[in-house]
């Protein structure tokens, strides 16, 4: 079950928690000093609550984890990636409105 708060994920547990998740997963790649990341964080938290049980929402600090962002070629944050069955189905780069994220999320469900 997806918790009410986004789950902090790391290089170590990314495969287990996200790629092997039995429901679609949304991962927010962020860093502490990135203003736009902090601006979209409340939206990601809202979605984690509203889609509880339907989508697993995780967040990865790119400053503490280098391997996963490199693997997915992430060169800009915030980046949101939606995974389904271990594959990328949607990728959003930059701070966007809640509507854009939700549209992508609904497509993945």
């Amino acid at each position: 079950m997806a918790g009410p708060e986004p789950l902090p994920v790391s290089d170590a547990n990314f495969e287990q928690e996200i790629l092997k998740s039995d429901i679609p997963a949304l991962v927010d790649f962020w860093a502490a000093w990135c203003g736009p990341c902090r601006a979209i964080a409340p939206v990601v938290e809202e979605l984690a609550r509203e889609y509880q049980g339907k989508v697993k929402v995780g967040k990865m600090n790119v400053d503490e984890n280098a391997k996963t962002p490199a693997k997915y070629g992430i060169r800009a944050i915030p980046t949101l990636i939606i995974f389904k069955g271990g594959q990328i189905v949607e990728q959003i780069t930059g701070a966007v409105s809640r509507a854009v994220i939700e549209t992508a999320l609904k497509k993945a469900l």
Partner: protein
Amino acid sequence: MAPWDYDLLIIGGGPAGLTAGLYAGRARLKTLLLEKLIHGGQMMTTDLVENYPGFPDGISGFELSDRMRRQAERFGLEIINAEVLKLEPGPPAHKVILADRQLSAGAVLIATGASYKRLGVPGEAEFIGKGVSFCATCDGALYRDQEIALVGGGDTALSETIFLERFAKKIHLIHRRRELRGAKYLQERLLQLEKVEIHWDSVVTAIKGNQAVEALELKDVKTQGTSTLPVAGVFIAIGINPNTAWLNGLLPMDDWGFIITDPEMATPIQGIFAAGDVRAKSLWQIATAVGDGATAAFAAEKYLENLSQG
């Protein structure tokens, strides 16, 4: 009942818009602020603001944005997320067209700010998010121990280089002149950084790579000599463009598209004001945006008073 939905509509939620909202709230004008994305504007992507008085140790741009928003809301400013598509001027009632409705107002303040200017070279648009960045605070951490470049020489360029230095293996600062333009204090700090190499009199002519940025093509403007600089990423901080294209030339602008106002922030259309980075002036800073915002709100208040006294 006032003959419009709001006394004052503020378009844009950066420091100019939020300050105008604060003053308008305290003047008890019925005010709505429309923000396209996130309040704070360019402050949102600023790591540390060190030239806004009152914060002797600096303050993060995010924190300052949030404080300005909370202060304005305390005095009654209403803020919504909406993009303005069109402004249909009165006077007296001005109409602001949104995607799903339209609003009328006695006065309108345009505080839509500015966006980062692009280089306009091959590869730039193609590699945005793949090695080309306009936000060092956003993307810096992804270039840990890598060799990167930053283009520019003003305040933003220098402070972003100083910020990036903590991550990168090496930073190439590419500047088209022989002298930097940014504040002397920032120049002094920059020159102490061992990982920074400055390429004077140089411009980027192309950004190269396969899947992502791999190299820059440089040209020395003095000798016309060209060279290739291998880098994993390039940050661009070469100035700002005003966000005025949506106005379709409704108001007089200077050659660069900045809105021309009088000292009271008034445009030639009665009841329409402009403040902050969107306005033609000599210094685009948070400190000057705040002054513009306060002046504009005061001028709007006086304008509305005169209207109601007929």
